[in-house]
């Protein structure tokens, strides 16, 4: 490896200059060197955080698999793997440029495609930054798969998840975060606060999921002849719980990592993230206990996630005490929202809309309300504008996209396939061939 280090040092020019040195150090050369070490720390933190956020893909995969039926396990796993894989490629090719390229209009970027901003020998920060951003894009994309689970055609999934990572997410992202790189969006221009993406990532994912679930319609058997929602139980609670722990871990990259700087500010973000998640789990547990007479596992797991989503916008500008309040409210909200969405006959197997859409909105509002520096009508107003813009834009465009897919290649599998299970029909395999699975209980 060392041999290559040399090549690398040449590439990382600045580094070279700072370390070449046997020449006598001066206050100036030292200052330069100090800044460089801090820069190295920033790279380190940004990339480690990116790795943690990447791992959230595993979390989503486990949660969504655990909350759906065994006969569709391969399908949901494939979707989670492929939305990240396809997403990485398209975000490299197009998405990143749209989100962070220079923009004349303030509506989206128009350069920096194919990571063209990076030239060997040049400053590699764009690579570190891209790495951190691509895992965010994939998060938005993967949220959708949960709400549309157990009935969506695989090929259609690939197409729309590519569209989400190429256009839908990046365009909105450019409005709120473009200036983090070469862009400058109208929403951030207003002073919109969404530190790590309650709206930019989670609501975008959640509202797209909502559109998808509506266009698809509910799974066979989800609603009885009486129109009452029926339980279609997830097949593997340990996997679902593992997924939530993994997501919680990943959020320690998602929120504090959004500083892309290794400084003291990450401490409060860690604490806020953890407290909000804890509070969300507690209040969701209590709410389910009161409403159903028993502490329900699915809701409690959703509660922790709801707390995490809700603190994402304000994790850097609210106090720990506020974080607890924000998370606690999210925990109640998610239970009510899941029941409500079930009731209005929208079938969201994993609760993606309630967790990411609804609580993304709540969290964004809360970031304004609980702003540590105090709040104003303007701040709240801007937050509301951002929330509304996200819903109108995302739901609208996603709805149209899903309608077009339905009209062309088709979005949903046939009833036979749905009953048989997507694993056999779509992938020609079964996830648990050695186990006896009960065929009637949930067919």
């Amino acid at each position, binding site marked *: 490896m060392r041999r290559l280090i040399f090549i690398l040092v040449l590439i990382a020019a600045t580094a070279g200059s700072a370390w070449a040195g046997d020449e006598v150090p001066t206050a100036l050369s030292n200052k330069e060197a100090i800044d460089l070490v801090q820069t190295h720390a920033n790279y380190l933190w940004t990339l480690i955080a990116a790795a943690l956020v990447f791992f959230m893909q595993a979390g989503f995969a486990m949660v969504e698999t655990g909350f759906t039926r065994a006969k569709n396990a391969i399908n949901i796993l494939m979707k989670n793997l492929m939305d990240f894989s396809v997403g990485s490629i398209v975000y490299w090719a197009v998405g990143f440029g749209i989100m962070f390229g220079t923009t004349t209009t303030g509506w989206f970027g128009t350069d920096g495609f194919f990571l063209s901003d990076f030239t060997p020998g040049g400053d590699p920060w764009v690579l570190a930054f891209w790495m951190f951003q691509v895992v965010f894009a994939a998060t938005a994309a993967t949220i959708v798969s949960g709400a549309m689970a157990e009935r969506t055609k695989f090929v259609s999934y690939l197409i729309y998840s590519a569209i989400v990572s190429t256009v839908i997410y990046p365009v909105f992202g450019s409005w709120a975060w473009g200036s983090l790189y070469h862009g400058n969006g109208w929403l951030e221009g207003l002073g919109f606060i969404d530190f790590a993406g309650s709206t930019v990532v989670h609501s975008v994912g959640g509202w797209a999921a909502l559109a998808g679930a509506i266009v698809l319609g509910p799974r066979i058997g989800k609603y009885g002849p009486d129109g009452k929602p029926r339980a279609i139980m997830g097949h593997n609670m340990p996997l679902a719980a593992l997924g939530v722990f993994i997501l919680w871990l990943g959020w320690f990259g998602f929120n504090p990592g959004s500083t892309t700087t290794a400084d003291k500010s990450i401490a409060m973000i860690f604490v806020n993230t953890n407290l909000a998640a804890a509070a969300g789990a507690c209040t969701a547990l209590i709410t389910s206990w009161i409403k159903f007479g028993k502490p329900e596992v699915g809701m409690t797991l959703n509660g922790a996630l709801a707390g995490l989503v809700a603190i994402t916008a304000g994790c850097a500008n609210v106090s720990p005490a506020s974080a607890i309040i924000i998370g606690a409210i999210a925990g109640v909200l998610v239970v009510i929202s899941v029941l409500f969405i079930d009731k209005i006959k929208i079938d969201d197997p994993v609760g993606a809309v309630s967790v990411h859409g609804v609580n993304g909105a709540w969290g964004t509002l809360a970031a304004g309300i609980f702003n540590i520096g105090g709040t104003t009508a303007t701040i709240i107003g801007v937050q509301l504008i951002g929330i509304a813009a996200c819903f109108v834009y995302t739901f609208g465009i996603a709805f149209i996209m899903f309608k077009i897919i339905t009209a062309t290649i088709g979005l949903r599998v046939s009833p036979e396939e749905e*009953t048989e299970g997507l694993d*056999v029909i779509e992938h*020609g*395999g*079964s996830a648990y061939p050695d186990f*006896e699975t*009960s*065929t*009637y209980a949930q*067919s």
Partner: protein
Amino acid sequence: MKKIEAVIKPFKLDDVKDALNKIGVKGMTISEVKGFGRQKGHKETYRGAEYQVDFVPKIKIDLVVDAAMSDQVVAAIKESASSGKIGDGKIFVMSVDEAVRIRTGETGRDAI
């Protein structure tokens, strides 16, 4: 008394159960079975190698009833379990010499 064994398609179980309740059947025992017959299984691919699944999942219903009821029960099952497609299954009827309810010790018709 007669024992009726019906092999049906899993997703038909609910309908059959309801149909049997309607005609007053109070109890039954079901089990997961795999069937082999005219309805063929399907091919699966695993890492490139094909794999023929010969046996199709079915539900077997064991049901002991008073001889007098037998035909009616068979009819009810035939009705409710039929999808008209290959693989709908079979119904077999056998004679039962004795039946006992464990809890009470009742025997014969009272036991079922």
